[in-house]
């Protein structure tokens, strides 16, 4: 009777099997810039999985980011990717979508980029019901620049520019989106991987302005400045404090420092997008004279 000897196995493949997310990533750019314990990579993984499951044509999918830690996401996804200016991901994506209407455009950026410097674009794109999926990663702080206060920093939380604690009331992001006219609004934390993936898959298949907020830990800055421990401690906190309330009134979704985080899908409405409203309106007013932009873009392509 022979006994296999530990440590003598020789039948390894020449290359390890490809990671299931690899086809969606620019593997030559890995490792990424994000800190250990950061939640952004998790969201990228969920998005890539959702994209694969959704069956959309990846050649027609574009991702647009602004500036900041989350803004780097566009650089790792193997799609047409645009890493733009601070706060301008949504208007850039608006041009991209309207310039070639058949594109599936996702904006991937952070809370400071989208609701601070880009706040005006956020509410107007929601108002127009622009056909964009916006994934907003909320870590309550400006990470890339060193932990400054954000429009989402909870009251009393410390940041490098609010060293004695924040006294500015923060945005309730889902409520901001919903009250501005968003067609789809949901929130999860980085802990809710399966639910987040499922929500993103659903959101990819919806139309109009879709906001998915993801609460993510920033162990390097937010957690350290507020003595909240490691990324794993952040996950434990979500585990103990996140509650799922689908359809909750968005007015009740404000986040207080280290208090409960209400998650779920809050808005899911079928309503015409900017382009549909435009086509319908011009079609009615101008009749046969109306020439919509072709799905493949404006005049003159090779």
């Amino acid at each position: 009777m022979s006994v296999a000897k530990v440590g003598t196995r020789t039948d390894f493949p020449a290359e390890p099997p490809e990671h299931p997310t690899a086809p969606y990533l620019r593997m030559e750019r890995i490792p990424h810039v994000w800190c250990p314990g950061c939640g952004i990579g998790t969201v990228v993984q969920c998005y890539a999985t959702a994209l694969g499951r959704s069956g959309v044509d990846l050649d027609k999918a574009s991702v647009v980011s602004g500036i900041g830690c989350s803004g780097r996401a566009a650089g790792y996804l193997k799609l047409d990717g645009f890493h733009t200016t601070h706060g301008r991901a949504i208007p850039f994506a608006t041009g991209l979508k309207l310039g070639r209407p058949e594109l599936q455009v996702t904006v991937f950026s952070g809370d400071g980029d989208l609701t601070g410097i880009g706040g005006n674009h956020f509410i107007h794109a929601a108002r127009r019901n622009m056909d964009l999926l916006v994934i907003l990663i909320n870590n309550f702080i400006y990470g890339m620049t060193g932990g400054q206060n954000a429009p989402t920093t909870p009251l009393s939380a410390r940041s490098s520019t609010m060293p004695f604690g924040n006294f500015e009331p923060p945005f309730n992001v889902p409520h901001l989106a919903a009250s501005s006219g968003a067609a789809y609004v949901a929130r999860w934390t980085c802990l809710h991987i399966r639910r987040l993936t499922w929500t993103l898959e659903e959101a990819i298949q919806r139309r109009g302005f879709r906001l998915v907020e993801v609460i993510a830990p920033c162990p390097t800055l937010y957690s350290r400045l507020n003595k909240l421990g490691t990324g794993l401690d952040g996950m434990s906190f979500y585990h103990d404090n996140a509650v799922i309330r689908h359809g909750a009134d968005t007015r009740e979704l404000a986040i207080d420092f280290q208090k409960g985080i209400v998650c779920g899908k809050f808005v899911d409405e079928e309503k015409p997008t900017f382009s549909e409203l435009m086509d319908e309106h011009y079609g009615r007013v101008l009749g046969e004279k109306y020439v919509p932009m072709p799905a493949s873009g404006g005049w003159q392509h090779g």
Partner: protein
Amino acid sequence: MKADPAGVLTGAHYLDGDFACGEGAMAAGCRFVAGYPITPSTEVVERIARRFPLMGGTFIQMEDELASMAAVVGASWTGSKAMTVTSGPGFSLMMENIGLAAMMETPCVVVDVQRGGPSTGLPTMVGQGDVMQARWGSHGDYEVIALTPQSPQEAFDLTIDAFNLAERYRVPVMFLMDECVGHMTERVVIPEPGAIEVVPRALTAKPPAEFEPYRIDGGTIPEFARAGDGYRFHTTGLTHDERGYPVMSAGCQESCVRRLLDKIQGDADRIVRFEEEGTDDADVVVVAYGITARVARLAIEQARRQGVKVGFLRLIVLWPFPEKRIRELAGSVGAFVVPEINYGQIVLEVERCAGGRCDVVSVTHGGGAVHDPAKITGEILAAGAVAA
């Protein structure tokens, strides 16, 4: 290739400069415009908003000029020709994403109908104070091309040229009108579509596996792939390598930014455009642009009647600046006289190129009106007396 007939309103029209500019854009194949209302430029987008639905174009009034410029850069990456339109205060806001367009090498046209500044200044009145901002307004080093029309007819003709240059060099092209030309109505003759030459977006023929968005293969301008064609490229406003990936190093900065400069500076002889008259034996040469060129021509006629040998150099392309020609002329003339509706901007370039070899006289005007031609005539006569 020839213009798309859907965008060309062939015939003789009585149009203001703003409308003519809008017609030029549509004739050039522009099918995406994002803008925010601002006097005295708004008529450009009003014209486009009325006509775009008939030709497959999309106009969107954005929430501000930051968004307008960002949307234009985004739209251009789909291959659609894109433009925005503004005036001084909005031009200031657009600088952020004009820099992005320069860095990403995005063809687009930015129309600035200049009014008096600074700040809110003179919303309904003429100025030419944005010419340096057009060149230097965004941070860091980059090159742009800027054109300046002197009439509604040129507002039409040069807008087409602006689009063609944007395509050829993959740069944001500044179209510097002024309120006077923008709001002045004159005859504008729009040719048949077959007589309008337009430069289409040149899309790469390489398969995706061989394509890198900023590889130049010995040239100066990379090939273009548009979003949605399967290239899965990446582009960024960060300093980047040939793959469009961020590289934070002095070496990459040198190769990335240097090429943004070289592709324009190295081809300046082909881009530079001016109109020259009577300079051969001139003692004085007047350098002017936009509406001031017309007023200056009147002054030149008056000065010639008084016996001064005065030539004229009208700048059509402002940036890149015609350095070579100014340098040559500086060796043979006594003085340059430079009237402009600002407190002396292009005159600084003339001085730089003249290099002290002749006098350079700045004829300033703060804005709100054009020069009194007599003032320019007086400066020509004074300069002529010294030179003779």
